[in-house]
Each structure stands twice: as C-alpha cells, then as structure tokens.
C-alpha cells in the first residue's frame, strides 16, 4: 500500500461503532472513518451547504446502508467516500491515511487501490469483454500479467459468470452486468466496496440475487457501504446511517433477526412472482 503518512490517526469512536469494543477490534483502525466532514458549493452567488459536518466509522467487515431523502447530502457523501471529490473541511481516513487533502493524482491512486465501486447503471466499458472489464482497476496500477487475468477469471467464476468470460456487456442481462461490476469491485482487494443504488435498475428477483451476493461477500469479511433509498434493500445491511439536511440524523444497527426477516420477505416475494408467471 502507498505510505501516506498522517499526523493524527483517527480515534475509534465508541459511539458510532456498531462493533462491541473487544480488545483486538479496538486496536484495529476502521476501514473508513470520517470526522466532521463538510462540503459546500458556490452556485452563482449562493453557497449551498451539502454536508454540514458528518462523523462516523465503518469498521472492517461492516455492512452499512446510507439512506436519506433527496437533498440530504447523500450523493455528496457518496462522492466523498468514493474519493471522487474533496471535502471543504473535515477529515476522511481510509485505514490510517487522511485522503481529504490529497491531490487529484493521489486520489486516483487511492481509488484504484482501496475502493471497489458498484454503480446503479453498472458502468462497464462497452468495448471490453467480461474479463477485461474486471481487470480495469489493476490496469491503472500497471498490473496486467497472467496472474491478474487468472484472478479476474476466478472472480468472474465466483459471481457465476464462468461461461460468459468473453462476452461484451451488451450481450449480458442487467443482473449479469451488475455481477461483472461486483467482481470488478473486488479485483483490487479494496478496503471497502462502495455501492451506489446497486439494485436500482434491477427487478425484485435480480435484486434478491445481487443482495444475496453482497451478503455472501460480507460473510467472507468484505466491508460494504451501500447508498440506497429503498428500505427493503437497507433492511439487509448490518447498520443503517440516515442523513437529513447534510447532517447525520440516525445511526442504527439492524439486528440479525430483522435482517433474516427481510431476507425471507424478499425470497417469498420472488417466489410468489415466479408462480405468477407460470
């Protein structure tokens, strides 16, 4: 990893952490940690405060859903978490490195090494095959060897696309494209996967599939941050962070029971739909 040094590493916040403070977990820095993050834009002569100081941590292995109505600062926070934009003030730690003051090129490097993106509209490169698309994040690190290709094929197989390796995005269904995107997001072994309305373009059955995939990844230890406005989707995360008017309005943990309930509910719904079709 890039040795970005930092003056004062984040203090793990007991308030915002969903994990019980056991000795080992407390010593380990969270995957993501934001402190008093604020962002304002100047539109014409008016200053718009999109974020007014938000703080929370995402420990390693967590699964967080970020919710909020439009205008709540959800998208701004997403851009910030994705290192696509810089905050006006506050700090943003990825591991132990403060990325809030990095240059454009350093941010690009961080994106390529530490973040796995999953977008609503899949955002695959049309002229590339499935395997080539999965390899893109490592491409910009200059890693293009056979080892990387093998890893891409293994990831494609793990999301159930072993027989679609040479296909172009156009030849795949929406659900399959999103699987490619998820495989791509894991290619660089990121600190966390950042999913932006990842199921927004999919029907219920496919949504259930994709959420199942996220569950599996999370069980394997992946950290996931998901921005969504659907309660049913958020219900499957371990924790829901809500924003309102640029401020954190709530941060609550979903119990394992409620998550299982949500899973069952959706499975039933999908089954009912399947029967309707026949």
């Amino acid at each position: 990893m890039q040795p970005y040094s930092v003056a004062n590493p984040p203090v793990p916040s007991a308030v915002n952490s969903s994990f019980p403070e056991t000795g080992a977990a407390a010593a380990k820095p969270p995957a993501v940690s934001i402190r008093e993050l604020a962002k304002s834009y100047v539109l014409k002569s008016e200053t718009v405060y999109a974020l007014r100081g938000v703080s929370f941590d995402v420990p390693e292995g967590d699964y967080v859903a970020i919710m909020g109505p439009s205008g709540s600062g959800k998208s701004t926070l997403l851009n910030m978490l994705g290192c696509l934009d810089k905050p006006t003030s506050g700090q943003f730690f990825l591991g132990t490195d403060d990325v809030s003051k990095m240059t454009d090129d350093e941010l690009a490097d961080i994106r390529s090494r530490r973040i796995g993106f999953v977008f609503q509209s899949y955002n695959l490169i049309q002229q590339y095959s499935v395997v080539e698309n999965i390899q893109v994040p490592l491409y910009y690190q200059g890693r293009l060897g056979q080892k990387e290709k093998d890893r891409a094929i293994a990831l494609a197989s793990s999301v159930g696309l072993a027989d679609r390796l040479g296909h172009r995005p156009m030849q795949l269904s929406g659900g399959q494209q999103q699987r490619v995107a998820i495989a791509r997001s894991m290619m660089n072994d990121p600190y966390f996967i950042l999913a932006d309305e990842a199921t927004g373009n999919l029907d219920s059955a496919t949504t259930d599939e994709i959420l199942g995939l996220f569950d599996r990844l999370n069980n394997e230890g992946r950290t996931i941050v998901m921005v969504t406005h659907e309660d049913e989707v958020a219900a499957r995360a371990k924790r829901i962070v809500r924003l309102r008017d640029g401020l954190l309005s709530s941060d609550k943990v979903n119990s394992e029971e409620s998550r299982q309930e949500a899973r069952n509910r959706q499975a039933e719904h999908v089954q009912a739909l399947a029967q309707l079709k026949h």
Partner: protein
Amino acid sequence: MLWLRTWQLGVKSLLLHPLRSGLTMLGILIGVWAVIVLTAVSQGASDQVQKQIESLGANTIIVRSVKPSADKMTGMAAQYGLRRSDLELIVSNVPTIESALPIREIRRQFTVSDNTVDGRLVGCTPDYAEVNKLKVRDGRFLADADDLRADTVCVLAARVADKLFPLVEPLGKRIYIPESEDYYRVVGVLEHRNASAAIGGSLDSQDFSGDVYIPSKTLRRRIGDTVFTRRSGQMETEIMELNQITLQVADVDRVRITAAMVESLINPRHAMLNDVAVVVPLELLEQARNLRLMFLGIGVLIACISLIVGGIGIMNIMLASVTERTREIGIRRALGAKRGDIVRQFLVETIVLSFSGAMLGILLGFLGPPMYRLLIYSVQKFSPEKFASLPDAIRQAEPTIVYGTIPLAVGIAVAVGLLSGLYPAIRAAKMNPIDALRHE
C-alpha cells in the same frame, strides 16, 4: 507492458468505428501521398532538365543566330546572324576560350537512288563530334584534311544511313543533294543518339538523328551563305554565314566572365537586328535548380495544407469521440485512471490514426511513379496534340521517389496527429469524474 496495452486499446477503440477512423485518416493519407508524389515528380522533371544541360556541358557557351522579327528584316534577302568575322573576333580577343566550333546548318533533302530523307546538312569542324558527344559506328568522323581540301565527303547520322542504304554498306557510297545538285562520299556513320529536349525558350531541342555532316569549308565553297528554301510554295532566300558557334572554356569558374566578354564583343555588332543570342548552359543549370526548388516549395505547400486539413479532421473527430465517451472517461477515472492516463489514451488513438494514415500514404506514394507514367502514356495515346504542347521536362520526366521525404512526411504527420489530439485529450482529462459518470 502498460504502453503496449495502451496501444492495443487504442487500435481496438479505433476499430470500433472503422469507417469513421478511415475517413479521419484520409486527410493525413492525402498529405503524405502528396509530399511523396510531388517531390518524386519534381525530382524527375529536374533530373531530366539537368541531364540535358549536363549533356551540353557546363563549360560551354553557345552563341546562336536568331531569326529577327519580321519588322526588322528589310527586304527579302537580308542577311542576318553570326558572321565569320564574329568568330575571328571572339577567338582572337577572348583568352579564356579553349576551342571554338563554328556550325552552319541547312535543311536539305538527301537521296540515294529511290530513297529520300529530309534532314540537316551540317557544316562543321572535326571537333564537332567530340563536343556534342557523338560516337562513330562505322568509318570515321570528319578530319582536318577533309576541311583543308574542302573534300566532298560526309558523315551520316544512324537514321539517315539506315534509310538511304537499307541493304548495302554505306561507307564509300555517294549520296545526292538535289537542291545543290551535288554528290558527297560517305566516310562514316554515327551511332544513334536520342534527341535532347528544349530548355525553356532559349535553346531548341537538339535532334541529331537526321544530320549529314560535311566539312565547313566544303559547305561554304559549294553552297555558300545564300540559301534558297521553298516554303509553302514561296521561295525564301536566307543569307547567313554561321548558325552557331559553340565555345568551350577551359575553366568552369570562368564560364560566366567569358560569356560576358563574348556578349560585349558581339552585341554591338548585332544591336540593330538583335539576331544573336548567347546561351550559357551553366546558367540554365542554375535556373533548373531554382525551378526544382520552386516545384518542391509548391509541393510542400500543398502537402502542408492537406496535413493541416487532416489535423483539423482528427481534432474534430477526437472532440466528438471525447464527448461520446464521456461516460467511459468517468468510469476509467473512478476506477483509478489519472489525468495523464486519459491524455495518453486519447493521444495514442490520434497517433495511431495519423501514423496509419501516413503509412497508407507512403504505400500509395510508391504507386505514384507508375501512375504518372500511365497518365502521361494515356495523354499521349488519346490526345497527341495536347501531349505535344506539354513541356519536355514533364513529357520525359521519370518520377523518382526522394527517400528523404518519407521520414519527413511521417514525422510531420505524427506531429500533426499529436498536436491535434492534444486539445481533445486534455479536455477529456479535465472532466470532473462525477459529472462524467452522470453523463448519459
């Protein structure tokens, strides 16, 4: 590795739109093609001119009689042109002259039994063959003794010999000149020599194929200076002592000054009729060089315009491509591409475009010389009048590819590609990834 991959990707992206890429290449292709073909043709034309002039010799000065314009000619039988006294004056006053060759030419018919040939009867000295680089096939050229005795001997050009004596050996036989009612004994036959083309307006083409050479003194004694010719039913009388004096200068560096001296000697004597011209092949050589430079200049200009147009075409297409691929740029940026990576990606595409255009232009350029020959051949075949009106330098030019222009053309093409790709590439790299990702 990364670069190799970038190039592969560039080619791949361009192959997504083969027609568009092909059309974009066209401007560069035509530019490079133009550079190669135009320089080849101009090189061929100037080679031709240069060859002619060199065959005249860089150390010669030609003083010719020129027929004055009709209003200056008083009476039907006025005399004009060079005099023998001019020759004496030049030889005795200009020290830098190595040799002087007086020539008198008359158009005559030559017959042997039923065979008749029209040609030039040339009165000359034995040096003539050497100065004009004529080679003897059979027998000998004129000798000093022939001139001294004013013998009625002649040397035939190859064509004349073949026409007059199709079946027998010409040496020792006699030819008849009806207009002078005179017989000449053949002592030699020359090798065939191609006609040289005219140089501009100052020197006629030199065709030696219909010549019959006799000693100067013989011509003067038996025919004299007054020549009657029948032209379109009219008798024309022409009085002239010499048609031409070919002067040779020992030192090439002194050619100009010698020419100036000759002019200053001769011009006052011919100021009235303006019936003498001094031609310096060396000067023509330099003119030809200038002509070639001009040709080259025009070629380069045309090529530059074409390359600029090609560059604008590339820029236009790349700008459209950047807009069209905004989303792709956003994705790449989000997944870790730096601004430099995006610039590189688009620059590579423009370089691939312009370089392939240049390569195709070179290939087509090599087809240029055969194409030119075909063009000249078809003009000659289907419209001989037009062909005749073309300048000799163009008619006989043999286009030769100037290899030095190839790397130059490729270099310019790639530079144009780089320059015209730079702005679209920078524009692509400057895009905000957030906006680019949102772009539909």
